[in-house]
């Protein structure tokens, strides 16, 4: 039986992650809490808006209302960048210690040596993400996405699709780019030929995406089930129906986290419930009963037996699958 070690915090949890094996919880008020032989925390930002893991999964990169970007773990945090009074609305981590962040209409890349490069856009930079291959990052923007090559002065690649694109992710093999949109839909591009993929039909905005092991599937929130699109074929999900996992009639999926090695997803709902569902036979296991508010973030640990979760209302915790 799965067991839950709760951590009741005060405020919206933006990101719940394992740094090495220590559960960390980044809250919107700017504090990062952790369960490391007891409950500990450090104040990092005045208002934390975005968070992502570095590529070694050992530090949390965060951006805030204070216009700052920090790298934090345990009781240490390092100021990586400042962008004036504008909010840092998106952060991403890339190869060789590079990070990207967005403030207003500018995307920034900071290399490991501290050098910062700016990429101006005519409209707001809504989301940033690095490609898994090479020094390349993507920007989600109004009417499409832009790919930049920060290591060289190569010309950016523009990918157009009408509408506001708010978030962005690359498939783990680097072949596909997927954006979340202001309308209730995802949009994808096959990068080799620019072919479009429309993934629509969601009753709500998609706010959480997770690639399954080896990038075979892309799980998404925004419906009464986790919508899981097949990406194993060369054309991605085009012409194929998605899986619907963990369907509930009275709740919406708000967060998804795929298992590191198996075709299983942890699914979080707007009432705080968490389930694990296997893709092959849709078998469901209840991991956590409903709580106070919507699940916002989840992650599996390296041993594949624990799931850390955070919620809008601060009732966070760690689920041990084996009990």
């Amino acid at each position, binding site marked *: 039986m799965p067991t839950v070690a709760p951590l009741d915090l005060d405020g919206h949890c933006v990101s719940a992650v394992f740094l090495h094996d220590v559960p960390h919880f980044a809250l919107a008020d700017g504090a990062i809490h952790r369960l490391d032989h007891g409950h500990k925390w450090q104040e990092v930002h005045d208002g934390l808006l975005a968070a992502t893991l570095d590529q070694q999964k050992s530090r949390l990169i965060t951006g805030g209302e204070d216009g700052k970007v920090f790298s934090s773990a345990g009781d240490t945090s390092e100021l990586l960048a400042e962008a004036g009074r504008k909010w840092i609305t998106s952060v991403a981590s890339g190869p060789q210690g590079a990070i990207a962040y967005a403030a207003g209409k500018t995307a920034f890349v900071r290399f490991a040596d501290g050098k910062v490069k700016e990429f101006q856009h005519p409209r707001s930079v809504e989301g940033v993400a690095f490609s898994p291959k090479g020094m390349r990052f993507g920007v989600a923007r109004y009417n499409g996405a832009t790919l930049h090559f920060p290591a060289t002065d190569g010309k950016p690649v523009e990918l157009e699709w009408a509408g506001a694109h708010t978030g962005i992710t690359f498939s783990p093999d680097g072949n596909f780019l997927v954006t979340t949109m*202001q309308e209730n839909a995802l949009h994808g591009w096959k990068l080799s030929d620019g072919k479009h993929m429309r993934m629509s039909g969601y009753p709500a905005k998609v706010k959480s995406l997770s690639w399954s092991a080896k990038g075979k599937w892309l799980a998404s929130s925004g419906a009464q089930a986790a919508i899981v699109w097949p990406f194993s074929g060369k054309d991605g999900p085009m012409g194929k129906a998605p899986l619907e996992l963990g369907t509930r009639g009275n709740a919406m999926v708000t967060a998804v986290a795929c298992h590191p090695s198996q075709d299983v997803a942890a699914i979080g709902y707007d009432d705080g419930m968490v389930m694990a569902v296997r893709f092959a036979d849709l078998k469901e296991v209840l991991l956590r009963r409903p709580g106070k508010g919507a699940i916002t973030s989840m992650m599996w640990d390296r041993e594949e037996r624990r799931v850390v979760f955070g919620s809008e209302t601060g009732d966070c915790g760690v689920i041990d699958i084996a009990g």
Partner: protein
Amino acid sequence: MTESQTQIPVTVLTGYLGSGKTTLLNRILSENHGKRYAVIVNEFGEIGIDNELIVESDEEIYEMNNGCVCCTVRGDLIRVVEGLMRRPGRFDAIVVETTGLADPVPVAQTFFMDEDVRTKTKLDAVVALVDAKHLPLRLKDSREAEDQIAFADVVVLNKTDLVTPEELADVEATIRAINPTAKIHRTTRAGVALDQVLDRGAFDLSRALENDPHFLDSDHDHAHGDHDHVHDENCGHDHHHEHGDASPIHDVTVQSVSLRGGEMDPKKFFPWIEKITQMEGPNILRLKGIIAIKDDPDRYVIQGVHMIMEGDHQRPWKDGEKHESRLVFIGRELSTERLQRSFEACQA
């Protein structure tokens, strides 16, 4: 977050550079009114107050991908409101300051069209600051000045000390011609009582038309002493704003159409208003109405912005209250005759 969570009220401030917007904003931020405001501005600019709840945001208009050109929202507001609402308890209300040339419509529509924003906040009122001296010039050279007035619930007619009484009367008549339902306050140095611009509930169907004594009184048959039309100083005018009459200042393209009728047949009225908002939506800036539905003990109130319309039962008709339906459209290229005729055809 549960649905029952209180929605935070949002006030939108529009107005040209020099209209007194910053002065009013500074008063909202510094006066002791017992409420805390988060303020979303385009530039920190002249706001001389350091406050962590002032957020700078680049105006970003997004067309919704549904083929409707008037379905626009402010993408930056969606992001900022979402961020602010993750840390509730720091403020009681939000003020959005727009740039001088801003179109107020996408700002307002954000609070109806974006599901996340709508569950957490509610639009309280759109307040337009107008410079009494420069309005005639503004109306000549831009459509935005007119849109801002047409769209407003409250118009603060500022800098009245810089014009003659005759000029002021003309300017006010022009504002009335553009927008017969807005509440007008004559001020100098944006000296309007803050409770006249904040917490107005102008989009709240249960309150909207109650606190609006001028609403649809196109025939002016009421006694002028019975309402709370506030003029902070120099209240020397005679309250005869002749709705529907031509503006004494030209260059006005916005018009209002006031309709009046008896009890409505719901089977005719609702399809009609639906069709009007679908077909005329791009031309309609605002619509407001109180509808008497046949055999319904409650007043039915509706309000709309372009193609977005909402309606609800408001309160029972009072004893002796005349069961009549009244509807005002503010927009462009509206056919009064056709609207009146088709409206009357919906009567029971």
